[in-house]
């Protein structure tokens, strides 16, 4: 079997689907954050696969993957800080019970 671009893209799509399912169906805010990280990883896999198979010498996709990792780190920091401060004031991080911004 010759592994080509399609295989990596299908893997990326499946991983993205799993992450989206978890992010939509979980109650705990930390698990939702974990599933968002899965989705970001799926995007990074697609970027690196494009970089390897479409422009092997240029590596622009790998630069994009580096920026994805940077944004994921920043997002995890801020999201966990928000989770901690919500946990302190409301004693729960159940996403179905956090209704501060509900109209």
């Amino acid at each position, binding site marked *: 079997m010759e592994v080509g671009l399609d295989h990596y893209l299908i*893997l990326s799509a499946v991983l993205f689907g799993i992450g989206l*399912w978890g992010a939509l169906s979980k109650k705990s805010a930390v698990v939702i954050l974990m599933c968002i990280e899965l989705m970001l990883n799926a995007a990074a896999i697609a970027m690196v696969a494009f970089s390897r198979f479409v422009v092997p010498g240029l590596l622009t996709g790998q630069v994009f993957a580096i920026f994805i990792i940077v944004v994921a780190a920043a997002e995890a920091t801020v999201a966990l800080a928000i989770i901690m401060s919500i946990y302190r004031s409301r004693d729960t991080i159940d996403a179905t019970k956090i209704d501060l911004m509900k109209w």
Partner: protein
Amino acid sequence: MALAFLIFSAGIIISALAVVLLKNIFRASLMLVLCFFLVAGLFASLSADFLAAIQVLIYVGAISVLIILAIMLTREITLGSLTNKQAMPALLGSGFVAAALVFSMLATDWNISTAEPAEPTTPILANLLFTPDNFMLPLEMAAVLMLTAIIGAIILVRDK
């Protein structure tokens, strides 16, 4: 090459499913760490050596420690990983999204190059990231973003 791809992709999908399906949140986070490790291996199989190292350092080293700390500081483990009422519609929706992605990928005729991949990727990446013609401005904006995120996180969690 094909064997490595099969092992890594099967491991990634199984550990990602375990993140979503496991009831114990701590075990789910450990499966997330395993998934990050396998993605690093997949990057290595795509001849992205520097990116594999970055993945291990930042995802396995930093982000997963942050997530595990958040699990330990909240009362997550006693509750377990609960699902809300929309689990089935969410499964349908995300399955539809994944299927649409796969079909559009297979329908597109990608312009695949047969050239050999660059062997040490670090000089090329350094040229891309640190020359003003390429990605220097986005790199500086990423640094500003990191600083903003750190200051924002400190302001959010400090005592009033």
